[in-house]
């Protein structure tokens, strides 16, 4: 009986020990109250003129947010600011992050960061090494939006204050997401950027942000990166062509000249595929296939849409328009920047690994000199509630 009890006791202890082991596996188990951290909403990274790293962090003051949200105390005396922005210089990102603690009172918490804004000087200097910290740290949100600041420092962007949203970083993030729906900015999340950097067959492209007046930002365009350094920028239309080609376009409004006016086509669905044609084991041509489904969103003119011919014609014009944008983007990246942001190299690596082994080093120059074949399919699904424009001439 006693032996049985002892055995049972040993068994219980074993089970307890077994349960305790996972304790060692968890990375963070320190008890830290939510009020004992500084919640960072936006991060800015740039280089100073001396080549030091300049970290800008936008920190939110939750209590102030609540009082502005509920409208309490508006117009009352000294209202605390909902956010404050703090800069710190350091040799490395981590040093700057920890160094920040000599200025702010609580540990900075990065998981809620909405945007990471990279300054132009940093982009020109190279981004790959500074991103290491963002992958290594366990608190980073891999879904935070990455933006490249054009003609403005990250600090200036993060210090923007307006009435649209009490937290500027949230305002920026929402704006980016809106623009993504228009197809004129590339939505780059941290995880995408990291993936693109690791993928030797594809150069990263980052959404662009610039200042619009004193209080607003504009998120349009794309920064083209080549080997971790900024190669140049794509304007909104080129960006759209680029997104059409790589199949990342969700929706867009394309203006098409039609007889007696202009038609605004709303792209409902778009598929894009990039490929490299090979001849005699040598790449002979870049091939881009895009197929879109569109609706007529507006017809500012006096043409008619009530016969299939009209629609066919419109489809042809839409194809041309899209093709034009793709060519614009492709030519710029080929000729000017010589940077394969389309990921043709990834295709080659996958389907022609033998060739890729040798060509990997000089792929960008091979890419720049390949001719391109662009094929666009367009289909008009609906014309909205009415068929002909209101002012259609008979």
């Amino acid at each position, binding site marked *: 009986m006693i032996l049985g009890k002892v055995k049972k006791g040993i068994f219980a202890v074993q089970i307890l020990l077994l349960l305790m082991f996972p304790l060692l596996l*968890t990375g963070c188990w320190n*008890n*830290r*109250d*939510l009020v004992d951290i500084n*919640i960072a909403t936006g991060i800015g990274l740039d280089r100073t003129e001396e080549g030091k790293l300049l970290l800008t962090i936008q920190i939110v003051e*939750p209590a102030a*947010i609540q009082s502005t949200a509920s409208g309490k105390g508006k117009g009352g005396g000294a209202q605390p600011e909902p956010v404050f922005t703090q800069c710190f210089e350091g040799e490395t990102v981590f040093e700057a992050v920890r160094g920040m603690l000599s200025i702010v009172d609580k540990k900075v918490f990065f*998981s*809620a960061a909405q945007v990471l804004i990279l300054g132009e000087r940093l982009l020109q200097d190279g981004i790959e090494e500074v991103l290491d910290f963002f992958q290594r740290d366990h608190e980073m949100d891999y879904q935070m939006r990455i933006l490249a600041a054009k003609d403005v420092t990250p600090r200036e962007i993060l210090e923007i204050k307006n009435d649209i949203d009490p937290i500027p970083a949230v305002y920026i993030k929402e704006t980016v997401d809106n623009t993504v729906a228009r197809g004129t900015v590339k939505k780059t999340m941290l995880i995408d950027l990291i993936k693109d950097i690791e993928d030797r067959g594809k150069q990263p492209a980052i959404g662009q942000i610039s200042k619009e007046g004193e209080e607003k930002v504009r998120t349009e365009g794309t920064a083209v990166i080549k080997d971790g350094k900024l190669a140049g920028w794509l304007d909104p239309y080129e960006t759209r062509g680029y997104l059409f080609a790589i199949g990342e376009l969700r929706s867009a409004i394309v203006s098409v000249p039609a007889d007696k006016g202009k038609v605004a086509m709303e792209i409902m669905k778009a598929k894009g595929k990039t490929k490299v044609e090979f001849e005699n084991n040598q790449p002979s041509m870049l091939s881009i296939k895009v197929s879109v489904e569109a609706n007529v969103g507006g017809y500012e003119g006096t043409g008619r849409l009530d016969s299939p011919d009209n629609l066919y014609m419109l489809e042809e014009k839409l194809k041309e328009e899209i093709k034009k944008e793709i060519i614009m983007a492709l030519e710029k990246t080929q000729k000017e920047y010589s940077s394969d942001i389309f990921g043709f190299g990834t295709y080659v690596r996958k389907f022609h690994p033998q060739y890729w082994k040798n060509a990997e080093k000089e792929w960008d120059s091979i890419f720049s000199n390949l001719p391109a074949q662009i094929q666009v399919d367009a289909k008009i699904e609906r014309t909205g509630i009415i068929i002909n424009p209101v002012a259609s001439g008979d």
Partner: protein
Amino acid sequence: MAEKTRKRGKEENQNSNNRSTHTDLYGPIPKTTEAVKEKLGEIFSQCSDFIQREILCGKNGKTRMLLAYFNGFVDKMILNQDVISPILDFFSNNETDEVSPVYMRLKDCIVVNSEIKEVDDMGQAVDGIISGEALLFIDGEEKALVIGVKAPQGRHVDEPDTETSIRGSREGFVENLLINIILIRKRIKNPNLKMEMMTLGKQTKTDICICYIKGIANEEIVDEVRRRLKKINTDAILDTGIIEQYITDNRLSLFPLVGNSEKCDKLAGKLLEGRVAIICDGTPYILTVPYLFIESIQTTDDYYDNAFFATFMRIIRLLALMISNLLPGMYVALVCFHHTVIPFKLMITLAASRQGIPFSPFVEAILMIIAFEFLREAGVRMPRPIGQALSIVGAIVLGEASVSAGVSSNLMVIIVAITATCSFMVPPLIRATMLLRFVFLAAANFMGFFGIALVAVVVLTHLCSLRSFGIPYMAPFSPLTSSDLKDSLIVVPIWAMVTRPRMLRQENTGGFKNSKRMEVKTSRDSRKS
């Protein structure tokens, strides 16, 4: 403690028949009523409610009789009608000098009472008197008649306070054992509904009744109930709650392994499923065994209502059970450890509501939960008329005032309120939940979600290891009994519920044998220690 258990083991044999001890104590019935009167006066000295009435009748009061009873315990009207006046009538009309025929006649044709019994020793006579019957002693006889003239005691059949339902019977059990038996018989008109009476408690001599339906209830479970009840050796059985503690399988578990109910229709349903009920005189709460975990989220309304709705309610109840256990712990884990999983906007709200609170979330949660328990317990204990004052105070403590005073965040107030509300949705598990909540809270404060998962594993393991009268507590989930799932989280319509719970019917399967082995072991243990 050890001494007590040893004593219990020794007395086990005698205990099976409590009445026999009295025989030794009081001996036979004396022949003369004089002697009887003297002896009874001695036994019931200082009992001012004890009444002995001498009846002198026959020629010159030659035939002497003694009527002994407790005042108020017997119905005097019936006593007069059934006993005293027939005797007086008889002797005024018939003159008999022989004694023996008088006794026979008394028993067979004079006393008009349906419940009449002959006893031949003093112990049984005393038992009769103390259980509210009238004793008739006749001069010259060593026998006495026990006449059932017990006055109906206690309150009327009423709606139970603890178990209310929207539909269904409003009849609840009362304190009177016989009325309770009738309430069950009224619902199950079947000769197979068996009622086995026994007496427990050395001082209280409480009537206990084991109730089951022969042919539906598992005989082995009925045997087990008899065995466990017979083993009880205690002075007082004042409520079924005391029986429950003696017969439960695991005396140290937080979870109830014996069910209780005040509702007649619920009990009838349990009996028809094959459960065994234990009725105790003096309490409206009737025990049912075996009691499974799933029963705590079953209500009678589930069977009277639309099955889809019933299923939804079962799921809601289970959800409420989990919330009432886990919510404060989850909150502490989120706020203290796992900031990364909180959505951004919620995080701002959380951080803002916690701003300026002087306590850590753990301390804050403990304070608020204890404050709530104060209020709850005060609400149970205090006299009813003061209730209003308490609710006002309660609203202040657990409300806006504590938030604006800055001792608690408004989110914590909501959490405590939801936790409390949810715990009331599953009444049988309130006690277990109340204590487990603190364990989860402490684990969350120590190790976050990992701690909660750890405690949850321990609790679930414990639940799965429990058995109630041989039936696995977590049935039909563990072990999975697919045929019993029809009345678990999913409730199928009543016309589709064609089979009785298989778990309760099982005979000669491993489950029950295990429990028997366990039972034998515990009894041996208690004797040894």
